[in-house]
């Protein structure tokens, strides 16, 4: 569904991703793990059209190269950005409404309301807080809203950037359980995490990113057994543990 081939990304002249190749199949939960500044956020933003890039990038057979972020969302690919990035002074209802921004022109109000109900089923707490300012909610609720807002665009592929960041373990469990539920409803998921243990538990497959390169990939269950993965995501030098193999 998502095919990334030899993708590099740049900030000015600095290269933050070098030749990343990976894919996500329809119906999968794939996780991308890596330490601080490995380039995880850069990869998601490159996919979404926010960062300058070269290489090949295709979603459902259509190339995403050179498309603006607002066009890419319309193709069915939404990002839940790192740090939630809510419209903090606006209400929960407004945040959700804006999530569906591109759909109002083409789709019926009923279709959008149906998705709103779907979000409330997933996160019932949001329904009680529709009139509350997004920025005044708790961290966990904000993360739920960020996911809900992304879902309002009715994505076929959902990209999440460190949804566990700064949340209590029990809240993280809850949110990740929702991701499995979403997958059962037909949403494909690419989950970026630093919290490898948690991410590998829900994912089918995983990639490990280090200083802008994919250094390891495989079935999540296998990587979870792999002691070296723990090291990799802690940011140890790759050589250190490949040489020991």
């Amino acid at each position, binding site marked *: 569904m998502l095919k990334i081939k030899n993708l590099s990304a740049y900030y000015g002249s600095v290269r933050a991703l070098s030749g990343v190749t990976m894919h996500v199949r329809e119906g999968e939960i794939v996780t991308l793990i890596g330490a601080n500044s490995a380039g995880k956020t850069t990869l998601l933003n490159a996919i979404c059209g926010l960062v300058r890039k070269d290489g090949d990038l295709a979603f459902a057979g259509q190339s995403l190269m050179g498309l603006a972020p607002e066009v890419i969302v319309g193709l069915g690919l939404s990002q839940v950005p790192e740090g939630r990035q809510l419209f903090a002074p606006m209400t929960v209802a407004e945040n959700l409404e804006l999530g569906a921004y*591109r759909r109002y022109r083409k789709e019926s109000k009923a279709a959008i309301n149906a998705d709103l109900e779907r979000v409330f089923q997933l996160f019932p707490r949001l329904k009680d807080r529709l009139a509350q300012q997004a920025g005044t909610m708790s961290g966990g609720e904000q993360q739920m809203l960020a996911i809900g807002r992304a879902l309002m665009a009715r994505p076929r592929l959902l990209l999440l950037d460190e949804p566990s960041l700064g949340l209590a373990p029990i809240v993280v469990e809850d949110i990740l359980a929702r991701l499995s539920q979403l997958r059962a409803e037909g949403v494909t998921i690419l989950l970026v995490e630093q919290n490898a243990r948690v991410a590998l538990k829900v994912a089918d497959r995983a990639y490990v990113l280090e200083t802008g390169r994919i250094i390891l990939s495989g079935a999540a269950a296998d990587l979870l057994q792999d002691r070296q993965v723990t090291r990799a995501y802690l940011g140890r030098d790759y050589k250190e543990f490949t040489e020991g193999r």
Partner: protein
Amino acid sequence: MENFAPLLQYLISGLTNGAIYALIALGFGIIYNATTIINFAQGEMVMLGALCAISIYHVAPSLPLAFAGAVVLVTCVGLVFERLALRPVKDPTPIALIIITVGGAVLIKGVAMLIWGKEAYALPPFSGNDPIHLGPATILPQNLWVLGITAISVLALEAFFRLTLVGKAMRACAYNTRAARLVGIAAGRMVQLSFGLSAALGAGAGILIAPLTLGVYDMGTMLGLKGFSAAIIGGLGSLAGGVLGGLVLGVAEALATGFISSGYRDAVAFLLLLLVLFLRPQGLVGGRK
């Protein structure tokens, strides 16, 4: 009681000017929210509004037509200005863009001088010149027009930003441009819209004030600076702040003119501006920094 009549009179003229400043201040705020720049060409939109309305009225003496025509024309100028002067900039740092708006202001003023010359032109008041007696003071119908149309514009703006999808999208862009793009809002469109909206507000201010002060090619500079001061005094980027800043400035000017001397009129704006910057830099209502 003797002091009451002039005081009321000053208040009336202060609020009228203040309403004009408020409209201009809102233009500054809307563009600032969308782009984080100050558009120093905003005052020229006021001048263009006044002079375009006067010219249209000259050809076809209908005030509603002149009003609507001038607002549409100046809105187009605002849109074209953004498209041709700002959007093509390769490395759009705020300071580069602000300098371009200063250049744009000089250019627009120059072109206006070529078209209209240096004379001042009159626009008839919207509904006669017979003063209405209000206790010991009098109020001109045009004052009421200024206050009424400003009030309606402010309410309409508020409704636009609170209730419509596009208005909410503009606010979302101001709060978090990156997140706005991720949900599918075309940020460039919102910037362009902000220039159109601000130009329309400026034009409205110019047309409203033309019957009171005459229209002349260089009227925009001072009005632009006053509107800018009002925006800062109230809180740049806040709608309530723009309105409050405008009214406070207008009334302060009128009181200084009336009780001290008209020579102090323009100094008041800058005195208030400095005072706010020292004591409450976020502005009276506390817009964004």
